[in-house]
């Protein structure tokens, strides 16, 4: 089937991007992060498919990863769904997820269920445009996605896809944009860190001594990762972000920098960041960590700014969505009869 045909028949379709690499990075070794094995991801997707099926969703597009998370979850298609792989080349890198999200946006998917942590959702958000995300936490740092059962996420995504819920249920999250020499090169959903690390290496970031500055998109209490530094300093409600400069100076805060890794971080200065604000990164060369992972190497000659944008991805909170669906009486009869 060609892409164009799909575009015609796509309304009501749900995309699934399950990152097989999520939840396995070096923070199992340098911190005490959980291992999210792929069998568990298969089980989560299986429950999500059950939820989607119950709402009447017929068509599911999925990122065909080398593990076959979604095909295994479908168990010879016991759910009788129209399951179609998203036709992107499998490169075993993060770009697979981004390409898949772009394809789903182009082909009119109603929403995208993601399985991963902040890193996975960042990559999906680079490609998904206006398509809402239903993010299920299976990563290391899970500030962005929801720790929710696949069944609930599947029901919520399904109700949105079949039209029982609408855009009023969605929340637009902020994002941090990284501009180099006037070009938007990347985004982060939760935080950008300026690191002295020379190499991207294992990508994860866990040593506060290597970090110069942190910019967070929103100050959220009770999170793990660099965003926890801002949360410990600035108990201000969303949607304000924050800028934090690390180093000996005014105060120190004790924060969970990674799962099981509670450490004291010296803070030189900090201030709130409003949507639209731009922060110029003076420290160069440096490495920028986006949502906890070293991603960009910045040279001395580059002009780098980070801008807090209110126009990040649209997100559906599964629990709020099911509450709204209940108010609308969606569950008073078999879900599929509403179609």
């Amino acid at each position, binding site marked *: 089937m060609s892409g164009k045909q799909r575009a015609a028949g796509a309304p009501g379709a749900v995309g699934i991007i399950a990152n097989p690499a999520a939840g396995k990075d070096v923070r199992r*070794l340098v911190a005490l992060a959980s291992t999210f094995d792929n069998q568990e991801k298969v089980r989560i997707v299986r429950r999500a498919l059950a939820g989607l099926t119950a709402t009447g969703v017929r068509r599911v597009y999925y990122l065909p990863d*080398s*593990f076959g998370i979604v095909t295994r979850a479908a168990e010879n298609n016991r759910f009788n769904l129209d399951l179609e792989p998203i036709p992107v080349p499998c490169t075993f890198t993060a770009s697979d997820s981004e390409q898949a999200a772009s394809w789903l946006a182009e082909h009119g998917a109603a929403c995208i269920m993601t399985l991963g942590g902040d890193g996975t959702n960042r990559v999906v958000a680079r490609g998904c445009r206006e398509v809402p995300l239903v993010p299920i936490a299976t990563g290391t740092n899970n500030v962005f996605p929801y720790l929710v059962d696949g069944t609930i996420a599947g029901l919520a995504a399904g109700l949105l896809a079949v039209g029982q819920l609408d855009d009023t249920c969605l929340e637009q999250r902020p994002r941090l944009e990284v501009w180099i020499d006037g070009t938007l090169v990347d985004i982060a959903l939760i935080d950008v860190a300026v690191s002295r690390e020379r*190499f991207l290496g294992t990508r994860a970031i866990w040593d506060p001594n290597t970090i110069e500055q942190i910019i967070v998109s929103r100050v959220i209490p009770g999170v793990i990762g660099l965003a926890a530094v801002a949360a410990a300093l600035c108990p201000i409600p969303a949607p304000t972000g924050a800028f934090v400069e690390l180093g000996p100076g005014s105060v120190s805060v004790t924060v969970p920098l990674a799962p099981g890794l509670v450490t004291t971080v010296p803070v030189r200065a900090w201030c709130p960041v409003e949507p639209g604000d731009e922060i110029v990164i003076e420290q160069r060369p440096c490495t920028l960590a986006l949502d906890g992972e070293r991603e960009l190497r910045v040279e001395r000659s580059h002009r780098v700014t980070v801008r807090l944008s209110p126009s990040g991805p649209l997100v559906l909170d599964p629990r709020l969505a099911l509450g709204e669906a209940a108010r609308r009486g969606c569950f008073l009869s078999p879900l599929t009869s509403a179609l």
Partner: protein
Amino acid sequence: MEIPRERLRWIYERMALIRAFEDRVAQEFAAGKLPGFVHLYAGEEAIAVGVCAHLTDRDYITSTHRGHGHCIAKGVDVKAMMAELFGKATGVCKGKGGSMHIADVDKGMLGANGIVGGGPPIACGAGLMAKTLGTDQVAVCFFGDGAAEQGTTHEAMNLAAIWKLPVVFVCENNLYAESTPWTYHCAAPDIASRAAAYDMPGVLVDGTDVFAVYEAAGEAIARARRGEGPTLLECRAFRYYGHFQGDAVSYRTPEEEAAYRQRDPIQRFRQTVLSQGLLSEDELDAIDAAVQHEINEAVRFAEASPLPPPEDCLTDVYVSYPAEQLAFRH
């Protein structure tokens, strides 16, 4: 993660040496100069080098049938290696081991291994030695995705975990066990996560990025040296050649192989160090030239070396044994 300049040079030199060695072995094998089988490591250099950069001669490694890269990363003499592959008396194993059993215990290299899954228990033994004698030595067990399905691998991971042995299990997942894709041979195609079953950290690492391997292995080896027990690293990479030389590699597409080359570990290293001005192009080219020279010399040495005298067949079986009982009867 800071890597001193000399270490960066060493990393590049070792990776380049492995690549040059394997490419040359492929040629010499095709020319019919090498007996037996060879399994080439090209494409996976970042794993052996990134790991062994943290080891000394006193540390041990166990290897696989694809063991040349591990030998070179562990500092085994390349001339003696080449001579071994030629079956010569000057070989590192006196022509008795060949490619599949190439070893040098003086360098802590406990052997390539013709048995898939043969190495993990032996690595536990080296770790047990260190623990028993109270040294800070570690043992690294390299194994492939194929060996991930062997009982010995699981038994060894469990043993290392219950005894908190200083062993680091490094799975080199090159996506194919011979011609069988790991997505077929692995019920839950996810090797790093298996560590959870043995209460040890399991980490997925980009095995085409020597900096990623170096950093993860450094943490795992430091943990082992501190007596905190084993770690499993799953390093994903690609082998450029077939399972063995002569394999037509019909199970992979040209597109797939081209995609591998996009992530070539040596090119990636070059780009990183050049873009950051850590090493110069001239410097890297000089290393390449030196490596080529070393390989040429190794082949010259191997070709000029004599075959072992036939009766050497009868030596090195035991430390002591009645000689007449080793010989054939008539």
